């Protein structure tokens, strides 16, 4: 029996009276690359943040590869998950942040080594070997001993991607990974993400404002507005032949802005 890799079942997220996600049903298959687009305040980033357990939800259940994340099975009943359970399921998910969130007091290499050594219990030599391979992959092997403050924004984001890959996630979440970058650095980061998407090794969920990139790399694009998924489909269908007025308006505004 195959499960979707990610499944949201009537997920409700609210800040007080403000509902950010309204009974969201949503799923992503294993190996699928899905982009989420939408205006600000549409709840698109919240989808990633609740899945990463950065924020709690008020209702519904999230599943990762068929296993509940915010709940757990006890004698056939779904009860609120223990911290240990959340940590076990969460180990499958990695996240790349808009503002990188590298640890400023550690070198690029130490950033990558942190999780393998201190949560997976790998030896330093083993972790370093793998981290160097990952830094090589993102084109920054020679910057391994540099601190984040010595790297450009684009380089920092590539280190952050390597750091995330070092924890061997099955799911990669990208939260507007190029929004905080100067325009000339966007390309180098997108290139790395493109390679990851093509590899087919990861289930990827990407929140982005780069419509062209979303169209290029995604298997599916979802349009969010007002805490709901309004429309989804293959990139060419969604961008080429939008159905809902809200999506049409959104796309025309985005294209107008260039």
């Amino acid at each position, binding site marked *: 029996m195959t499960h979707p890799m990610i499944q949201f079942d009537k997920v409700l997220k609210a800040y007080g009276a403000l509902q950010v996600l309204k009974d969201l049903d949503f799923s992503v298959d294993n190996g699928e690359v899905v982009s989420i687009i939408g205006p600000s305040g549409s709840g698109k980033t919240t989808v990633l943040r609740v899945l*990463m357990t950065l924020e709690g939800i008020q209702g519904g259940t999230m599943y990762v590869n068929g296993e509940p994340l915010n709940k757990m099975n006890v004698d056939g009943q779904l009860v609120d998950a223990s911290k240990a359970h959340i940590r076990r399921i969460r180990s499958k998910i*990695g996240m790349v*942040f808009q503002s990188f969130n590298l640890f400023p007091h550690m070198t690029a290499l130490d950033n990558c080594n*942190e999780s393998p050594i*201190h949560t997976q219990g790998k030896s330093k030599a083993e972790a370093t070997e793998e981290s160097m391979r990952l830094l090589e992959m993102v084109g920054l092997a020679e910057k391994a001993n540099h601190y984040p*403050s010595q790297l450009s924004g684009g380089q920092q984001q590539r280190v952050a991607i390597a750091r*995330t890959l070092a924890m061997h996630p099955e799911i990669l*979440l990208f939260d507007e990974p190029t929004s905080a970058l100067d325009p000339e650095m966007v390309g180098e980061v997108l290139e790395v993400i493109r390679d990851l998407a093509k590899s087919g090794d990861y289930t990827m969920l990407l929140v982005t404002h780069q419509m062209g990139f979303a169209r290029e790399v995604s298997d599916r694009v979802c349009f969010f507005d007002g805490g709901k998924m309004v429309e989804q489909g293959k990139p060419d269908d969604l961008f080429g032949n939008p159905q809902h007025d809200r999506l049409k308006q959104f796309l025309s505004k985005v294209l107008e802005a260039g």
Partner: protein
Amino acid sequence: MKEPGPTNGPGNTKHLRGMSMNRIAIVSALIAFLVGMTFATFSEMRVFLPAILKGAVVTVQVSILSIALFLFMSVISGIGRLSANRPIRWASIFYIEVFRGTSLLVILFWMFFVMPEFGVTLSPMVAGVTAIGLNFGAYGAEVVRGAIAAVPKGQTEATIALNMAPYKRLTRIVLPQAIAIMIPGMSNLTIELIKATALVSAVTLVDITYAAVQQNQLHYRTVEIFFITMLLYYVFAQFVRFGGEALEEHYTRHLSKRV
């Protein structure tokens, strides 16, 4: 390939180093002045300077021991204040509020005069160090708490995304960055603490202040005696300030461009 060389913006480092050099110059000048004055008015000073310097030794002893207790209590209760564990959090809040809310002298007298009623008789030194350390620890707790809270939220989020255990999160990511933030506040409190050691003269410890009062009652050289007394405290304060700046430079050398 660029070697991982000096990390700060060069201007920043120079600026800091310039300030430190300035401090060293001021402190050295003061010490030279102090020694010079000793010789210039040798006959006058000879009478009371040894007693005051003997007091200075006591002040330094009390200061060092109190600072150790102060740092310990600050960190313990500052972290405890943010603990998810309710009894630990409440105990920390209780300690912080009580020892910040009362006056140091009251705490000192309480240690010295009331503790014996409970069967615990403290020597003047122990009473002084305990009172000062506990009092300043309560203030330091707020500095530690504020510094931990000032570590950007994204750092904690990154540790969650990397699936790190809460205790590793604190010791490996949050505290190392919080230390850099708390140094100026803690160094200011340390200076205040050294000044506050003057109060131990109330429980019969002969520190600089006590010695100065004694010597003044013997010799009536108010201006000289108190000028030297204040100068000594001033020099101690400058040493702490200098040390604090050096530490801050050390801890922030990679953090110049916060991200």
